[in-house]
């Protein structure tokens, strides 16, 4: 089981990044052992489709569940197609978000949480 968290820094003490496609880092961890690795979000500076690309990165890393702040429609539909479940409603540090997730306090999202499209290029 792989859990991904969008984060502003590269360790468990860093803050949850509420942006999904344009977050700074993804922390990918095994919630049972709490072992984790950090990847820089390569889609962060994408001129378009950051959410789609971020979903691709997570799918390539075999992530099953994601904790983040907001997902737009494109990201939502890519994550869903990749079979990744999205959990929102967390705040504070990555560690706190994981604790809440383990206690079942985070809600699973069944729809995009924002209108998206912040990364459009014309």
């Amino acid at each position: 089981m792989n859990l991904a968290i969008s984060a502003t820094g590269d360790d468990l003490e860093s803050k949850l990044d509420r942006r999904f496609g344009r977050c700074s880092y993804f922390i990918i961890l095994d919630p049972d052992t709490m072992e984790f690795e950090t990847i820089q979000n390569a889609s962060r500076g994408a001129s378009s489709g950051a959410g789609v690309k971020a979903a691709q990165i997570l799918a390539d890393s075999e992530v099953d569940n994601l904790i983040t702040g907001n997902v737009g429609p494109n990201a939502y539909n890519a994550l869903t197609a990749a079979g990744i479940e999205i959990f929102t409603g967390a705040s504070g540090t990555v560690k706190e978000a994981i604790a809440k997730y383990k206690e079942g306090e985070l809600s699973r999202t069944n729809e995009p949480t924002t209108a998206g499209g912040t990364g459009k290029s014309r």
Partner: protein
Amino acid sequence: MQITVSAGKGGTGKTTVAVNLALALSESHSVEFLDCDVEEPDAGIFLKPENENSEPVTIEIPEISEDVCTYCGDCSEACEFNAIATFSENVLVYPELCHGCGLCSRVCTADAISERSKIIGEVRRGSTGSIDFYEGDLTIGEPMATPIIRDMKKKVTEENISILDSPPGTACPVIESLHGSDFALLVTEPTPFGLHDLRLSVKVAREMNIPVGVVINRYGIGDKSVEDYCEDEGVPVLMKIPNDRKIAELYSNGVPFVNKFDNWKGRFNQLFEEITRIVNPRAKSVEV
């Protein structure tokens, strides 16, 4: 002669200058007007074109046959715009992110990608008096203005005077509008903000080797910084439009001010003569 009227940001009076210039010149020249500000085409409000007909503008977007697709992910990796995502058992195409570059179908070794045309906007053609009027219109939600501007510019003829109302800023659609222009007429306001944007516009035009000139709109507000900059940089200030209540009123009623003030008609013709001299310094008399 192709003159592109541009501005560092919206709301500086770019469309006003383009429209008044076109109207003033149309009495003695053949003029084409191209509204390249395809996200917000508004020159038509002033020029009120008649007999418009429209042609769609399309791009080719990928369509994937999942029967042959091996989910190798090469297409997603190649796509610069993240318009395709490949997962273990599906491929998603995001048509609204696709720029129609065709790269994905070239890299797909399984031959799983075919292309279909998608309409992203239209070019309308009409006339205003003797002016041939074109405007591009981008379908809402479409990301790309450039192909529409490119299609529209195919209508430009060498012998006529073409006035292009460019989008504001310095992004791709502006570059596309400036491309091939003989002159860039930059409209700005005499304020530090105006100066900031003007510098960028001058830089872009110069990089493209297009001679520039400046029109200062709402002259009288702000400060001298734009004029000082133009003097230091050797950028000619070709016209100053005063911050005049009557001009502003006409503007808000959608009336080009050359239609009300004959002296301005003359000034726009002089402006054109100066542009001609800059573009073609050796020509003795003005010929178009």
